[in-house]
């Protein structure tokens, strides 16, 4: 059965590998994926551990529903203490790795220690080996995967790999699989690099038995039909996430030139329809019926390549945030970060920041080695990506450590322009007109982050009775309003914690349409897949448990309410352009503070953002630290 999959504990220093079946009681508390990873994060990493030291644990987890043919149920959660923020490190990756790992007999890996030399893990049908990766070290993320296939003479192997950025311990290096998929955020590739771990390769031929297969297939078919019938899914399968740009850049909800503007004028070359020039089809992840990413060719010029994507995030990273209005440049930047294995969103945010500092003459000339950090110059962008990924020169090496160490080196005045929370860059959305989105990024456990709680429904102006039915509480249908938004964020956070733990795609939830899957549908899928019974309320409680465990980890590492802080710029500088409802907007600090207090209260945390004893007891969270490896 699905529930007989194992967890393996791998110590790269000693070479010791043990494995055991994941208990039903653990499933009942945390499901799988992000949930079990967060339990292990709290219990397998000693307090105040060095994120790039051997005590940090790299945690790999497939979702509880991995393998079902619906809702993109092939996602894998990767966690560790973040080397970028020192807080919860956690990132989610699509593609085909998770299903292969489950076919190989494992749902979770807990990797500690540090290998003496470059190594990779080989996971195959119940066995795990630590193998020499000397011939892989130095290869980019594409060639690393190809070399593993070639070395093992098996085209069906799936790998999680790092590129040069991970090897060089860039604090926001990512983990990659396939042409485009990335566990982008919080520097999980840096943690792999710090352990001399170049890759985790897996091949599985074991059966996966579902509890009620016939009914499960019928229900998966129903779910897929429902998703593909939405206009959202039809748009995604034609234009991908780039479709978001059409709205944000027309309305004025997109960060441009760091945060100097909120839409890119003359930005028509970044419209989603422009991808028709390059795209020759769409592809998707395991279990997905939407297929939201382009397969494309940039045919001409010095940056010609074949690739997949880009996501909306890269449109910001190499487009609006750095003042560039050419799709060719976005594609070139997107390809380069995929090759080096570095977070597109983080590097985009940090490049936009230093460009504004350069413009304002706040960046010491000696740091740039003659590189003119002017907006929108493709060669400047690509050179900066290279320098950061390879830690070349003073500037590249400094920026590779992320915002907070760079602020310390450049000077206090630079902090105001850094669009970061807890040391992590924000998506290129402009949250000044949208209090719910602002609350979400302020309180996210992993730093400025749109994927922990983003209430996409808030942007659609849905009737308030519809919102009340979903959220169980009055919520204003105006996205500029503060009313009811704390409960909205709390609810979305719980939903996404469950989504990340069952291993399905966040897009294929109520994110895309009011009738798309929520807790009730997840309950049924879990039952048909595993036989485990959870109604809506216990599932919401599991979401609460996961988020509160994350919060407890952060508290232990020194994070409290003082860190749930938005950039001051959101309060001081009004949005300069955009349509009437957006133009001239700042956030109200008092109202945001009230939202944060309400949000803490709903969670059962105190005014300092610390879970109360009563809440911890109610949620049954084990607090005793146990480092078993």
């Amino acid at each position, binding site marked *: 059965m699905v529930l007989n999959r194992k967890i393996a504990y791998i110590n790269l220093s000693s070479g010791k590998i043990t494995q055991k079946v994941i208990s039903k009681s653990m499933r009942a508390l945390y499901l799988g994926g992000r949930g079990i990873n967060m339990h292990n994060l709290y219990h397998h990493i000693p307090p105040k551990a060095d994120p790039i030291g051997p005590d940090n644990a790299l945690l790999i987890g497939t979702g509880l529903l991995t393998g079902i043919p619906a809702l993109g149920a092939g996602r894998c959660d990767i966690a560790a203490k973040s080397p970028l923020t020192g807080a919860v490190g956690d990132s989610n990756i699509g593609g085909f790795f998770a299903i292969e790992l489950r076919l190989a007999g494992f749902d979770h890996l807990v990797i500690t220690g540090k290998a003496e030399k470059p190594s990779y893990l080989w996971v195959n049908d119940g066995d795990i080996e630590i193998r020499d990766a000397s011939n892989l070290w130095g290869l980019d993320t594409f060639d690393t995967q190809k070399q593993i296939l070639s070395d093992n003479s098996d085209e069906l192997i799936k790998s999680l790999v790092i590129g040069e950025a991970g090897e060089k311990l860039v604090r926001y290096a990512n983990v990659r699989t396939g042409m485009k998929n990335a566990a982008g955020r919080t520097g999980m590739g840096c943690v792999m690099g710090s352990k001399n771990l170049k890759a985790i390769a897996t091949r599985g031929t074991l059966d996966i038995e579902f509890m009620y297969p016939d009914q499960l297939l019928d229900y998966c078919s129903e779910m897929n039909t429902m998703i593909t019938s*939405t*206009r*959202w899914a*039809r*748009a995604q399968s*034609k*234009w991908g*996430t780039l*479709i*978001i740009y*059409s*709205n*944000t850049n*027309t*309305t*004025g909800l997109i960060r441009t030139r760091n945060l100097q503007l909120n839409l890119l004028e003359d930005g*028509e070359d970044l*419209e*989603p*329809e422009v991808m028709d020039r390059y795209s020759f089809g769409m592809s998707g992840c395991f279990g997905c019926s939407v297929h939201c990413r382009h397969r494309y060719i940039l045919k001409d010029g010095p940056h010609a390549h074949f690739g997949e994507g880009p*996501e*909306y*995030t890269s449109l910001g990273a190499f487009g609006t945030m750095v003042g560039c209005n050419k799709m060719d440049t976005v594609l070139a930047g997107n390809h380069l970060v995929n090759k080096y294995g570095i977070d597109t969103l983080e590097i985009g945010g940090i490049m936009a920041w230093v460009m504004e500092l350069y413009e304002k003459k706040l960046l010491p000339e000696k740091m740039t080695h003659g590189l003119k950090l002017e907006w929108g110059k493709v060669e400047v962008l690509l050179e900066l990506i290279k320098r950061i990924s390879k830690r070349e020169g003073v500037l590249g090496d400094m920026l590779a450590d992320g915002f907070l160490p760079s602020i310390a080196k450049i000077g206090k005045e630079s902090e105001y322009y850094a669009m970061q929370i807890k040391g992590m860059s924000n*998506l290129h*959305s402009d949250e000044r007109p949208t209090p719910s989105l602002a609350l979400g990024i302020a309180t996210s456990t992993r730093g400025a982050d*749109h*994927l922990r709680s*983003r*209430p*996409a*429904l*808030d*942007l*659609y*102006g*849905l*009737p308030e009775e*519809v919102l009340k039915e979903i959220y169980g509480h009055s919520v204003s*249908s*105006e*996205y500029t309003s503060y009313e009811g938004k704390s409960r909205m964020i709390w609810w979305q956070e719980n939903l996404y914690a469950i989504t990340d733990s069952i291993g399905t795609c966040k*897009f294929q939830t109520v*994110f*895309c*349409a*009011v009738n798309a899957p929520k807790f009730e549908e997840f309950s049924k899928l879990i039952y048909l897949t595993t036989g485990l019974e959870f109604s809506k309320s216990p599932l919401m409680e599991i979401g609460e448990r996961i988020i509160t465990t994350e919060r407890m980890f952060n508290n232990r590492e020194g994070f409290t309410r003082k860190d749930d802080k938005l950039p001051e710029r959101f309060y001081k500088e009004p949005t300069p352009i*955009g*349509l*009437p*409802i*957006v133009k001239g907007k700042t956030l109200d600090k008092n109202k945001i503070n009230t939202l944060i207090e309400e949000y803490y209260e709903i969670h059962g945390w105190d005014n300092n953002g610390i879970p109360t004893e009563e809440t911890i007891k109610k949620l049954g969270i084990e607090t005793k630290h146990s480092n078993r490896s």
Partner: protein
Amino acid sequence: MTTCKIELIFHAFFREITKTRKILEEISDDCTINNILTQLVNRYGNEFDIIDPSTGKISNENVILLNGKSIRETNIKVKDKDVLIFSLPFGGG
């Protein structure tokens, strides 16, 4: 009767139908969203038939922004220089 000029912006499927990103439209000053939708259905076809017959409001599958504000009601009067965007759910990243 006086007239006013408004801007209509089309995204996604709406752009495919109209084959343009933006048009300027001259309308009467008592024109409502409902009147505009009727005109668009007449001109471009049923892609613009986006009113949910069960509620009489713009269906939840579409996002119509009037000067950036999402609207569902169709009896709203449109003013000179208004911008009306025809789009789809667009959250994410």
